[in-house]
């Protein structure tokens, strides 16, 4: 594990992506196949199942460090990361260890079969043999995901360089639900026939936001313009008589959407469609909020299917008759998609995302202005001759979203962030006026610069009214402009409303708290846009 810990430490010490790729390539060169595969798995979020409660880890660490439990908890609030807190509070090691990454991972996996007492024994013994950096990595293996500032893109780049293969090919091989237990390095990365996994999706092509005037894109004839639908981006795959549904977050969600199961016999084998899983009723999309009610459910009951039915709004065709057609021009893929969707005899499952007829960019401006009425987020602008690329790439596809809704609100609670934002107050609760009373209606965490967070942190410390554990109530003085994508009625919130994607647009230092918006203003928005 020493080499992996060193890799981790060095990745943490640089902000340069070229350097990170070099470090990864160096590591791949010295690791054996097993360790290399596990390193790739861990860095791309495939860690062993969590089998120890974090409350137990805290207790064990506190007792080994000789500090009271509450001090361990307070330390955790300051550090913002449990794995790191434990690594820091423990006293120096009494032994050294020399086991490989794979051996340690096997230890972590083995924990699941042990009693709590046995787990404690294994973990304490491990801690006593490790340096601070090793403990941190080990704790991360037990507790959570690694965030090392290494994106999937960088990992792909490094493997591609190490293997002297195309990045796109590596990106595709890394998709899907493999783990080092279900495959090996040779098969995953090097075998000539990687399509052994029928469920394997293609990397999604993601668009950048269009910030320039659309006229800068040239003639609208060169572009395919569609609505940007507000659901879950997904891929529906039919291979060997089976259907697989993937979300953009690379999660296999087939079981959650039984609506798509009939496609196994309705679509030919070797079909992969990119589209939006959209709540839809009476030939119209429903609010995203409707979909949200069923995402978290374990069982998709008949009742849920009736209240929140979904369809696939089809955008693109990636595989046709078993052939990867991503390199063909969009226009050609679209024609095949239309033909395929038309061939599906059962209605109400697949819909084609309408291509808007735009002869002049001013018509696109008008269409975009109608987005909210259509329950869409704006427009997608795709070059007619574009290939389906992998990851976020500039130039061929643009998302042209509508401006968010905004409201001015007063900060009433602040809480410290985690990880990179530990020690800074970055998580706020906001309220609007109802008469003389401030009613909390949303939380927001993002949208400000580090400098602003620092300034607010210093303000929070000086203007704290009460402390509730890590949360502080503050003087209701600071006003922020909150932007959000949608507004819905909610019985779970005191204010009676729930916002979609709330974030801070700017800190309104110029605005006194008394001039913030009211609950009535929000209710008006709810009637208009809800």
């Amino acid at each position: 594990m020493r080499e992996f810990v060193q890799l981790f430490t060095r990745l943490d010490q640089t902000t340069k992506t070229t350097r990170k790729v070099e470090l990864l390539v160096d590591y791949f060169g010295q690791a054996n196949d097993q360790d290399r595969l596990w390193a790739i798995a861990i860095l791309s979020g495939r860690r062993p199942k969590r089998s120890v409660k974090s409350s137990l880890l805290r207790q064990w660490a506190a007792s080994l460090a000789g500090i009271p439990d509450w001090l361990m908890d307070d330390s955790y609030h300051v550090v913002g990361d449990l794995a790191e807190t434990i690594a820091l509070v423990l006293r120096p090691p009494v032994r050294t260890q020399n086991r490989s990454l794979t051996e340690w991972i096997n230890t972590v996996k083995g924990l699941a079969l042990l009693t709590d007492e046995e787990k404690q024994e294994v973990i304490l013994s491990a801690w006593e043999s490790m340096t601070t950096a090793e403990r941190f990595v080990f704790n991360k293996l037990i507790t959570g995901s690694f965030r090392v500032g290494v994106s999937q893109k960088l990992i792909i780049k490094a493997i591609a360089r190490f293997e002297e293969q195309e990045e796109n090919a590596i990106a595709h091989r890394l998709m899907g639900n493999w783990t080092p237990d279900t495959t090996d390095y040779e098969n995953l990365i090097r075998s000539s026939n990687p399509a052994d996994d029928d469920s394997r999706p293609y990397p999604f092509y993601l668009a950048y936001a269009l910030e320039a005037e659309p006229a800068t894109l040239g003639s609208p004839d060169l572009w395919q313009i569609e609505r940007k639908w507000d659901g879950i981006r997904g891929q529906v795959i039919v291979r060997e008589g089976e259907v697989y549904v993937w979300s953009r977050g690379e999660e296999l969600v087939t079981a959650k959407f039984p609506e798509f199961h009939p496609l196994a016999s309705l679509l030919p084998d070797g079909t992969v469609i990119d589209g939006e899983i959209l709540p839809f009723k009476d030939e119209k999309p429903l609010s995203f909020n409707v979909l949200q009610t069923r995402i978290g459910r374990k069982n998709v009951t008949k009742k849920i299917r009736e209240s929140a039915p979904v369809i696939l709004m089809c955008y693109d065709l990636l595989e046709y008759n078993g052939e990867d057609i991503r390199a063909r021009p969009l226009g050609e893929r679209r024609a095949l998609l239309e033909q395929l969707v038309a061939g599906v005899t059962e209605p109400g499952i697949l819909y084609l995302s309408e291509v808007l007829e735009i002869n002049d960019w001013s018509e696109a401006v008008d269409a975009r202005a109608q987005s909210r009425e259509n329950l869409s987020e704006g427009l997608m602008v795709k070059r007619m001759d574009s290939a389906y690329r992998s990851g976020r790439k500039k130039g061929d596809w643009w998302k042209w979203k509508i401006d968010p809704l905004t409201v001015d609100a007063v900060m009433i609670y602040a809480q410290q962030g985690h990880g990179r934002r530990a020690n800074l107050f970055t998580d706020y609760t906001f309220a609007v006026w109802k008469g003389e009373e401030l009613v909390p209606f949303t939380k927001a965490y993002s949208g400000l610069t580090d400098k602003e967070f620092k300034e607010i942190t210093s303000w929070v410390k000086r203007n704290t009214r009460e402390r509730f554990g890590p949360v502080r109530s503050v003087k209701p003085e600071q006003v922020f402009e909150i932007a959000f994508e949608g507004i819905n009625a909610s019985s779970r919130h005191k204010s009676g409303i729930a916002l979609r994607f709330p974030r801070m647009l700017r800190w309104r230092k110029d605005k006194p708290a008394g001039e913030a918006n009211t609950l009535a203003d929000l209710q008006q928005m709810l009637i208009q846009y809800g």
Partner: protein
Amino acid sequence: MQDGFKKDDLLQFTERGIWCPPADIYIDPWRPVKRAMITHGHSDHSRYGHDSYLCTTQAAPAIKYRLGDINLQTVDFGKRTVINGVEFSFHPAGHILGSAQIRVAYKGEVWVASGDYKLENDGLAEPFESVPCHTFITESTFGLPIYDWKPQEEVFAAINDWWRANAAEGKVSLITAYSLGKAQRIIQSLDTSIGKIYTHGAVENMNEVMRAQGVPLAPTTRVTQEIAPKDYPGHLVIAPPSALNSSWIKKFKPLSRAVASGWMSLRGARRRRSVERGFVLSDHVDWKDLNAAVDATGAERVIVTHGYTNIYTKYLNEKGILAQAAQTEFSNEGDDVKEESAESGKTES
């Protein structure tokens, strides 16, 4: 007692600072007072506007340099000064050169106000001296068990390794550290066989002050307009933390940046600075030394100031040491913010 003196009140925390009523003197006051005793020259302890100042002989040059024309008297470490029957003496705090803990004794009652301090002998500040007392006033800047410093030799070896690697790649190494104290602590530990040491003006000003009082610092060169940018690669530059976000560093190319601070213990803090390296180096006590210092005083009561005040107070009380938190205007941000305020203080003068 006849004069109304209660031993619990030998030093009181008032809105002006830490006040000793029988002597009518303040320790490190934050509002203007008649008579101030100063533990050390950092700006949150040593402020403008007092009628008279008393500090150690070794601390005086930096304080004078920063505060200009003030009415300043000095006293040697360990020497007793009696005011209205109250006995005062200054004892090494190990924080920076000349920094002191102030011992206050009256009618058999002994208090120690320790200012900022550390136990490790850094080779520059006079080594910390443990002073037995009834009541000990302590900082708690790094008063959590997550803060655990390595011996400075290890940290300096890592700094020199980093510099050496950068020099081999033709890079400039920029390290930030506060200009009074830590910058010189680093300078005296650098391996000058690697290259030259350049300094930001704020650091070089303090170097000059210390050299004038006889501290043998390695040769350093002030960064000026006259030096061509091509002369920097391979060498090291020391600057105050505020320089990191300024255009001043633009002339150093290609650059590797590092921060030397106790806060660099935490990954989040390191990443937030977005510098390549964070070296954990502080002039304050870490958790183990804080507890060692408190234990060594034998104090029956501890008053906890700037830092993790409430947490450390609770910890001591659970351990059976009577402790209470006190509000001060000392910076509880430790290494960094203190320095920035020190720099802005300088520009005002």
